[in-house]
């Protein structure tokens, strides 16, 4: 049976996240972007919504069960508030969810309660690599088995909060397969570079991390020496990004729509011009269509459908182009006003352009 109505619990979460997005994130976003810094307490407040905590079973100190769909619903609304902050609030997901999906029992016991402790702590992950054709399925960072350890070497980029992180879940290429390794930031051979500057998401602190023959015991590989299947992690990246792209696009769409209804040219409202009205209609259609793609893929993940991976990929694929189109058109509808930093649309366009390069920066 089809249904497009969230459960009551989901709706409560959506409402809570929306309040945070509208009342906390949106007012703080511009200054955070200009200063490349979050105001104190902002991220912590988002953390207290308990989105990740509600995904972790009670035995590991959480209070719920994982649902990709619930995560997608929350991620969209939070990104509607601000994308940088959403990445920051959800940075611990990058570390905890792979352990939840694929970690050994020992790893779950050791790390999950630590991550979802009362306060937000920057447990993070290192996935992206500084190559134009970076491919999470064929990493340049190499892991080799040597005796009873793995040696990890390579360069990572855009690792959120790497400088403060206690642990970095690092992905490397082990005999052609992408595998995760739980690495403490203080391990010999790990060096964190200077904070990076990017086109968008200025407030979210990103760092390059170099691994120089970093020695890791077997049991620090995700799921130990047995290893794991990367598929569920990838699908989680993709639906998370797809949902967040919808959120960013929705923000830009609403702003441009309201602006066009407000502003007059040639004696009528801007929105009454067919050319502008059609742009707004196209934006609305693409947002709704891509929202449903993300929802369906997440639902498939939760249902354990075989084609979940492909649909998560399609949702991500669609979202990359949709969010670029919508945010670009939003700037266009505001015209000169879209180009100045008094209005948020240019920021959303800068954030929106990044989605093709964000694989590894968000999970739900």
């Amino acid at each position, binding site marked *: 049976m*089809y249904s497009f109505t969230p459960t009551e619990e989901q709706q409560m979460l959506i409402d809570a996240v929306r309040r945070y997005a509208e009342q906390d994130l949106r007012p703080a976003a511009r200054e955070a972007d200009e200063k490349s810094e979050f105001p104190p307490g902002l991220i912590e407040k988002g953390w207290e919504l308990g989105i990740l905590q509600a995904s972790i079973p009670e035995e590991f100190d959480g209070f719920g069960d994982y649902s990709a769909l619930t995560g997608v619903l929350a991620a969209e609304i939070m990104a509607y508030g601000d994308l940088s902050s959403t990445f920051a609030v959800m940075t611990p997901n990058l570390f905890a969810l792979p352990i939840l999906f694929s970690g050994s029992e020992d790893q779950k016991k050791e790390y999950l309660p630590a991550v979802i402790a009362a306060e937000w702590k920057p447990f993070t992950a290192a996935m992206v690599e500084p190559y134009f054709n970076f491919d999470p399925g064929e990493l340049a960072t190499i892991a080799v088995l040597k005796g009873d350890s793995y040696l990890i070497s390579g360069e990572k980029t855009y690792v959120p909060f790497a400088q403060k992180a206690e642990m970095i879940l690092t992905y490397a290429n082990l005999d052609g397969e992408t595998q995760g390794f739980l690495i403490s930031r203080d391990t010999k051979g790990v060096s964190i570079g200077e904070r990076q500057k990017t086109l968008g998401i200025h407030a979210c602190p990103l760092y390059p991390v170099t691994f120089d023959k970093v020695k890791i015991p077997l049991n620090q590989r995700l799921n130990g020496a047995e290893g794991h299947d990367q598929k569920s992690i990838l699908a989680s990246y993709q639906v998370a990004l797809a949902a967040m792209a919808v959120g960013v696009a929705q923000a830009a769409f609403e702003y441009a729509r309201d602006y066009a209804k407000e502003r007059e040219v040639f004696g009528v409202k801007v929105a009454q011009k067919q050319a502008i009205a059609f742009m707004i209609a196209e934006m609305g259609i693409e947002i*709704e269509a891509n929202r449903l793609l993300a929802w369906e893929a997440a639902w498939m993940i939760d249902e354990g459908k075989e084609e979940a991976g492909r649909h998560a990929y399609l949702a991500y694929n669609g979202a990359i182009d949709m969010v670029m189109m919508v945010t670009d058109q939003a700037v266009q509808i505001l015209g000169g006003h879209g180009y100045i930093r008094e209005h948020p649309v240019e920021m959303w366009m800068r954030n929106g352009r990044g989605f093709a390069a964000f694989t590894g920066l968000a999970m739900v």
Partner: protein
Amino acid sequence: MISFEMPKPLVQTRRVVETVAENMMRPISREMDENEHEIPWAYIQFMHTATKAMGSSSMVAEDPPKEKKEDPKKKKYPPINYQRLMVMVEMLSWGDAGIYLCTPGGMLGAAAVGAVGTPEQKKLFLKRFQGKEPVFDAMAMTEPEAGSDISAIRTTAVLDEKTNEWVLNGEKIFVTAGQKALIDSKGFIVVWASLDLEAGRAGIRSFVIEADTPGCKVTKIEEKLGIRASDTVSIVLQDCRLPFENLLGSPTIEKSTKGYKSAMETFDATRPIVAASALGVARAALEFVHEKLNEEDLTIRYGLPRQKMTNLEREIIDMETQLRAAWLLTVKALWMADNKKSNALIASMSKVKSGKVATIITQKAVEIMGPLGYSRDYLLEKWFRDAKINDIFEGTGQINLLVVARNILGYRGSQLR
């Protein structure tokens, strides 16, 4: 709870209709296209018999009131009529979008009767679909000088108070299946006419004209780019007299356009059905491409970054993404219709998106298939021609975009033309 599981009964429906599409439609698809004015009687008879066997008379409208009461103890399944219709239309159009339009039984005309007719009218006009012979209906709205502009309708309906008959005069074009409704069967057409040209939209009403009504004449059958199995005709009404009860809805003209609006609401249901038809054609084209690539041992590698794909992979993945997106909009629009949620916005969204997606996918598929795509040895080029109609009928893509925009912006027609 959000769910994308197809309702179980529809999985069954889908399987059945797929068999029909594969066995009754695909084999005659090329022949019907090359011989433009032939009628696929075998398919028509089969569908008529099958529909009757299922105890239904119309694909889109509710059946005329039955005598038998339903068993109150039987657990009611949530409403899925529109969702079922979508499954059928998508699959039949996957089979052949032209032949699908030859499906007998109540279609757009019956939907109009079902939406605004009285119980008596429903009984009077809809029961013919349950007879021995297949019967068709049609909807006649467009006029030579009006296009999709309903307020520009110039066909008039005047009440002859002596005989209590309506007298209609005017010309209608682009009437889908008009020939089958009026000449090849004892069907009817629903005609839109004005009670008062001065009253604009408020004066527009719909009338049922049955086959063999004097003064109603099919004057032209169009030769078309695609969907050639389906007839598209012009109809001239010359002092065409109709019984009073052939008017659907109220005969008094109110100042408001309420009557007009409620008529327009039938489009909210039919638009996603056109979308479903577009989706079927698009899927056929995309499956053909996959098939041909498989023959060459080419497989699409999902999951790669765009920097590492081939151009073919990129194009096909984009097509699949767009097709799925359009499909989801359509499912949601019809789920809302079934659940009596107001769906004007998403109904038009689904129509715009699906029409566009079907056009683009078939265009791209022809291109990708190179010399094979351009050949009439395969059906792909036909699907390219068939698909384009979905950008055009039930309001062009532009008209539907206007509807979407008005809904989003909260504008009336006068505020955004």
